[in-house]
């Protein structure tokens, strides 16, 4: 505990350097804008701005990119409350009661509760991250190839289990991602795989063109401008403070959302999205007046907003301590660290303390910045929301092209982005979630290497995964999750995931 505090103080000495403060501020500001603007989510925002960080050191880069991620969770609530359009996916639940509050003339109060709830939950998440990540990294140092293989398989199965689409659909997406991740030179034998004579594919397909294509361009292709209409309810600054009654109604949902969000954040999947749905369902279930949900219930804003912010911080635990992405956003962040020569994982804490602790400390500072940014600048965000989408999306496409091209100055990457954009559009039509694909792409090299090393270690004996305690435990959890899914499938009954899927398509839980 004492060493953690000393390390955290060292982190603050890094995070409070003027340069690092500046990049945290830029990240938070851009993240808020990304969250506010519909049609551009945190993943495309981070991917597009990744090349901008090439000139920075690893600490500055990860501070800025993470700022975009948690900043977008704050910003998403503004659009949800004022326009009833989710600025990004995790703000869907905030739309319902947030906008209902706005229509009752309580837009300012809803924005303030969302911002304060986000700050409390974000800070809670960072405290937990500070306490959990370093000991977890110490345990992870004992991991060998069989443990990593079992962990990655568990990650994929957990993602499939938690997904609101079906297990088969999620695993199919993960398989496509794994296949894309195997394009290029095989690290262990030097064979070229599926590169079709293109030298650019020798190093494999990058995560940025795939992520920007699937999430950025794919979203634009599926969103004609005539479909994006919405009136902005502009709050008055003097109405920003909630009443004492509203604070009372918000306090416990914020506390519950913070804990729930953090726990879900650690689990693989689109955690910040799932957490807000579950928090909303929980608050509605335990409320003494459930009939108020959908008509401007304070708990319907406070709980989900706290949960999605806490979840976005929780997602950093496996990323930093184990080097395992829990979703596409942390996958891109791992990619960003690797570009700067810093591998995420157990060695990060011991080998790169400046990066790890500087990053953790910057999140404390960043959350304060976001609280200070979000409320006073609400007028600016309202003005931004008045820019017609028809003028906005050509700009986003231009940033997609620049962002992808600048990674390795390869036009092939831009073509890959375009192909992925069309693929992402088709996936939306057929009700596939592209997130597991990105996850599969990122873990493919680690997974293949650890699987093959495990088999070489055991002379081809699969029992190696059952003979080591950690990997055995992970395999048992994987089998348990598959059994639970199979049970729901065989009994053909609706479990909580089916209900969540129904909520996502518009039926509130």
């Amino acid at each position, binding site marked *: 505990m004492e060493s953690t505090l000393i390390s955290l103080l060292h982190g603050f000495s890094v995070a409070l350097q003027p340069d690092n403060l500046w990049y945290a501020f830029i990240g938070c500001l851009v993240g808020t804008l990304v969250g506010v603007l519909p049609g551009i989510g945190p993943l495309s925002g981070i991917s597009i701005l990744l*090349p*901008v960080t*090439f*000139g920075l050191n690893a600490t500055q880069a990860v501070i800025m990119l993470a700022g975009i991620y948690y900043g977008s969770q704050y910003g998403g609530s503004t659009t949800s409350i004022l326009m009833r359009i989710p600025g990004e996916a995790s703000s869907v639940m905030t739309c319902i009661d947030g906008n209902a509050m706005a229509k009752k003339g309580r837009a300012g109060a809803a924005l303030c509760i969302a911002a304060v709830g986000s700050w409390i939950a974000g800070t809670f998440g960072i405290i937990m991250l500070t306490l959990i990540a370093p000991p977890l990294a110490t345990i992870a140092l004992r991991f060998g190839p069989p443990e990593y293989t079992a962990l990655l398989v568990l990650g994929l199965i957990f993602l499939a289990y938690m997904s609101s689409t079906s297990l*088969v*659909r999620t*695993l*199919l997406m993960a*398989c*496509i991602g*794994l*296949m894309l991740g*195997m394009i290029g030179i*095989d690290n*262990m*034998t030097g*064979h070229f*795989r*599926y590169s079709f004579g293109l030298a650019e594919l020798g190093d494999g397909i990058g995560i940025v063109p795939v992520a920007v294509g699937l999430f950025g*361009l794919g979203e*634009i*292709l*599926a*969103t*004609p*401008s005539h*479909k994006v209409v919405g009136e902005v309810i502009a709050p008055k600054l003097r109405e920003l403070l909630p009443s004492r009654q509203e604070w009372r109604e918000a306090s416990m949902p914020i506390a519950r959302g913070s804990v729930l969000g953090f726990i879900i954040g650690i689990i693989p999947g689109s955690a910040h999205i799932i957490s807000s749905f579950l928090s909303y369902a929980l608050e509605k279930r335990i409320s003494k007046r459930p009939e108020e949900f959908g008509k401007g219930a304070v708990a319907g804003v406070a709980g989900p907003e706290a949960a999605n912010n806490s979840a976005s911080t929780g997602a950093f635990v496996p990323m930093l301590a184990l080097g395992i992405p829990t979703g596409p956003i942390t996958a891109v962040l791992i990619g960003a660290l690797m570009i700067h020569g810093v591998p995420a994982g157990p060695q990060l804490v011991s080998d790169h303390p400046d990066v790890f602790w500087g990053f953790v400390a910057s999140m404390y500072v960043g959350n304060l910045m976001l609280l200070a940014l979000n409320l006073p600048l609400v007028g600016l965000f309202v003005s931004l929301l008045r820019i017609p989408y*028809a*003028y906005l*999306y*050509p*700009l986003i*496409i*231009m*940033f997609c*092209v*620049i962002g992808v*091209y*600048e990674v390795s*100055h390869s*036009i092939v990457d*831009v073509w890959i982005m*375009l192909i992925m*954009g*069309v693929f992402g*559009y088709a996936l939306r*039509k*057929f*009700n*596939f979630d592209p997130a597991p694909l990105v996850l599969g792409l990122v873990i493919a090299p680690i*997974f*293949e290497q650890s*699987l*093959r090393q495990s*088999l*070489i270690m055991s*002379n*081809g*004996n*699969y029992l190696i995964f059952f003979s080591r305690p950690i990997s055995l435990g992970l395999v048992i959890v994987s089998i348990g999750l598959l059994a639970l899914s199979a049970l729901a499938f065989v009994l053909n009954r609706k479990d909580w995931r089916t209900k969540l899927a129904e909520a996502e398509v518009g039926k509130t839980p």
Partner: protein
Amino acid sequence: MKIRSDHVAGATFVTFGVVIFALSGDLPTGRLSMPGAGFLPKLVATLTIVLGAALFLRARESEPFSSLGWSDGKHAMLVMAITAAATALYTWLGFISSMVLMMLGLLVVIERRNLLRAGVYSLCTVMVTYGVFIWVLKAPLPKGPLGF
């Protein structure tokens, strides 16, 4: 039999898995004690075929293929065509010219905006972006035959 969306999706994934298998023909699978470069691709391709088949077989739970909404298809095709054209010209014409043309195309052809207003908006946003990348971020962007 009514064709459903998962029939189409499942069949596509099965075909994709078979194609990957065919393309992996020259990659050595190796042995379990020494897996080769083709080991995991073939394993994943098999899994894709199995999962694709499962999707196909359970397709009656999905919506009819004919009911999938393609009303945004024209918008998607036009956006793709204009962006692809700009990509083809990107390294040849340079950043400024290709991106101005792309934004102008998107605004005038798809969004039916006033040519003059769209032109001013495209030029201004592209020039500001160019300035930010070149002078603030020191990130080089492709230059065309005219040097910009």
